[in-house]
């Protein structure tokens, strides 16, 4: 089934024409509504009328996460506050989160894009669908939720945590679809084994898995253990949230909702566009978006766009799996974590030296984060000589990390000089997950 054949099966020429028209409109819109973009365009001597076709996009400037940070919180918002009906937030690189406001129309577009994904997975109005992404500032929960409602299936807003109760509902209610991170799907399978629930006891047939990188091997394991078909879903809050792209029954690349999100692949160093099929950094321009439209936003995700048409009948372009990042962002339990966020927390507590390590691992299919922080020599005074004093400092760091990162980290205090000194940011991270 195809939710919106008019948009998902357009001829390539029609799609390009539509994208060109929408690009012109969005450039005009930000030119008159976002001072940041007007300045950027004026500096490049570009007027909205210079942008008429989708090929003109290469004339436009890029937008980066740093631009979002510099314009915190609402500097890139184009719509007046009275039109904004929802605000989400995701991790910033330091200090402030990235804020994204949505108008009612944006929420409608998002819901339709999500409905297209679910339909491509084979979900129908008869399905009972459990959304086990986090509800709240994270776009995963509410994004998927609105999509399920939009297409008319029943949504169960499970959220995260309380896995045993979740499994009971999956079994007792005959839940047929689930949206969660792939690692959580494996954790569900493991908890099922522990509870003595067999895959014959449940009716799951579709899983929408995303928010973190996963492999073909993980897909096979999830499909075998839960007895469903697992589909990739991709998105990022800066652009919209989940549903930027989605797999179809072919499970061979993710179709991009390119009438709304125009993709480019660039060389992250030279910023030059790369030929179709080559791997580089994925860049998106939001086409008709009102709340916070972005021109050529650098996602930092590395992947390729796939040439050729898909057997499913959709004509919208597909992207391959995310192969890595062009920055040092980590995805832990579906949440984006930047080492610089950890650094800013550590530097905010005077007892710590600016030396630290992040050790990421996966235990029983759940990601773990261990933060090692080095104590300053000056901390060791006559009052810092009990486990209670050390514990208090450990707890202080853990609770600040939790509030900044939105995930719990285990904390380990290290003696002065014991963390290896290094050059470069990536040396702060050891990722032991086998992905």
């Amino acid at each position, binding site marked *: 089934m195809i939710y919106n054949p008019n948009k998902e099966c357009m001829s390539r020429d029609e799609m390009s024409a539509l994208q060109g028209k929408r690009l012109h409109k969005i450039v005009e819109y930000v030119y008159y509504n976002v001072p940041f973009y007007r300045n950027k365009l004026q500096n490049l001597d570009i007027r909205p009328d210079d942008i008429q076709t989708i090929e003109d996009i290469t004339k436009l400037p890029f937008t980066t996460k740093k631009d979002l940070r510099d314009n915190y919180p609402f500097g890139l918002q184009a719509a007046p506050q009275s039109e904004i009906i929802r605000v989400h937030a995701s991790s910033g690189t330091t200090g402030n989160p990235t804020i994204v406001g949505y108008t009612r129309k944006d929420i409608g577009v998002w819901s339709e894009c999500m409905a297209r994904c679910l339909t491509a997975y084979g979900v129908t109005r008869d399905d009972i669908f459990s959304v086990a992404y986090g509800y709240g500032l994270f776009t995963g929960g509410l994004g998927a939720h609105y999509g399920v409602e939009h297409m008319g299936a029943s949504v169960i807003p499970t959220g995260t945590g309380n896995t045993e109760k979740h499994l009971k509902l999956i079994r007792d209610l005959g839940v047929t679809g689930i949206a969660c991170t792939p690692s959580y799907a494996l954790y569900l399978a493991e908890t099922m084994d522990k509870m003595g629930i067999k895959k014959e006891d449940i009716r799951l047939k579709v899983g929408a898995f995303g928010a973190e990188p996963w492999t073909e091997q993980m897909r096979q394991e999830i499909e075998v253990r839960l007895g469903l078909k697992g589909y990739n879903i991709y998105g990022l809050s800066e652009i919209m949230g989940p549903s930027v792209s989605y797999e179809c029954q072919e499970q061979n690349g993710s179709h991009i909702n390119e009438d709304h999100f125009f993709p480019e692949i660039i060389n992250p160093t030279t910023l030059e566009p790369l030929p179709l099929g080559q791997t580089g950094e994925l860049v998106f321009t939001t086409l008709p978006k009102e709340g916070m439209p972005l021109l050529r936003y650098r996602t930092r995700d590395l992947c390729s766009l796939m040439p050729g048409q898909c057997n499913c009948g959709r004509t919208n372009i597909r992207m391959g799996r995310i192969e890595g990042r062009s920055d040092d962002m980590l995805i832990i339990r579906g949440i984006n974590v930047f080492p610089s966020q950890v650094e800013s927390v550590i530097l905010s507590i005077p007892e710590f030296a600016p030396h630290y390590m992040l050790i990421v691992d996966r235990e029983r299919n759940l990601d773990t984060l261990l933060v090692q922080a080095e*104590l300053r*020599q000056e*901390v*060791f*005074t*006559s009052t*810092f*000589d*009990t*486990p209670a004093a*050390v*514990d208090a400092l450990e707890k202080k760091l853990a609770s600040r990390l939790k509030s900044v990162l939105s995930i719990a980290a285990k904390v*380990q*205090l*290290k*003696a*002065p*000089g*014991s963390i290896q000194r290094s050059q470069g940011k990536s040396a702060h991270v050891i990722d032991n997950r086998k992905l």
Partner: protein
Amino acid sequence: MTIVQLSIFIENRSGTLIKVLEVLKDAQIQIIASTIADTAEYGIYRLICSEPQRACEELKRAGVPVSLSNVFALELDNQPGCAAEAIATFSRAHISISYMYSFLLGDKGILVFRTDNAEQARQTILENHLRYISEPDLSCLA
């Protein structure tokens, strides 16, 4: 009235404790008493030794996180009930004890403890004529 104790932060992994002991050995420092308050990840190694100031400097030079603190050291007869009697005195005066350990010095038991209320502890010791040892009592040992 107090003696000086070294408190050393050591991580729970092999090699950390021996490093501390080797620094002390090389500096010819004599350990008189020691104890470790441990948790899962690290320990606080507390010790009484000859020349604590010099020991502290040597350890710092070797990069070992260490601090000095003053602790009380009561001298008790080596007999059942003596510790109870001494602690009861502090308990009656509502002085709480953060941590405590003991060692033998000749035929006397030495009870080392730390309290956050040092001034009141000092008065209690004097008023109750409790016997205590001070830093010089230790240095003549080493």
